């Protein structure tokens, strides 16, 4: 079974520029998560989708971050405009339903550097 795919793997931008990340979850996984992992810290949940509806976006800085999951499959996360403190690894994860509902499968992440 193919894993969670993310692109790009690395991105360097200047502050005030915009950037977008893409995630393709494991086939059949209804729930999709975006996390921000700053160096030396644990992943912080930014947004959680169930199919194409938002379950939790309480920690998403909505003035600059946006995310969508059209058709309940792929998802994009956008930052506009970027700040220096947005430098981090952005992780996408997905999970199935049923007994394994809460087991999350992670993609390789996108490392963002804002200069």
């Amino acid at each position, binding site marked *: 079974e193919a894993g969670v795919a993310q692109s790009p793997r690395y991105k360097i931008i200047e502050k005030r520029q915009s950037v977008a990340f893409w995630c393709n979850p494991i086939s059949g996984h209804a729930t999709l998560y975006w996390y921000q992992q700053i160096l030396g810290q*644990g*992943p912080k949940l930014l947004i959680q989708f169930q199919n194409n509806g938002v*379950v939790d976006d309480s920690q998403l800085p909505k003035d600059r971050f946006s995310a969508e999951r059209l058709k309940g499959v792929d998802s994009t996360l956008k930052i506009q405009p970027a700040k220096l403190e947005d430098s981090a690894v952005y992780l996408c994860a997905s999970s199935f339903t049923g007994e394994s509902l*809460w087991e999350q*499968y992670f993609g390789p992440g996108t490392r963002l550097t804002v200069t």
Partner: protein
Amino acid sequence: AQSVTQLDSQVPVFEEAPVELRCNYSSSVSVYLFWYVQYPNQGLQLLLKYLSGSTLVKSINGFEAEFNKSQTSFHLRKPSVHISDTAEYFCALTGGFKTIFGAGTRLFVKA
């Protein structure tokens, strides 16, 4: 509010020695608890989970964790570590549809 505290940021240990990585949590709702591992230059992967039932859960590579509700802990243990266990370990909880990760513990196994 929910929180996860990993009490040690780094744990150095010699090969074949036992190890315990500590995790405490706080939540006002019932939770599911997880340990994830991140090997160098790899993505996060699930190591083991507690959903319900037996409070002692085990992984295929010799790790185990015990859910202790009274002490709100979910410590990870291994009786004899290998060099290949060198990695960062994250404790996480899911409760009320929210997922929270701890800051991580870097396990460094020395020969």
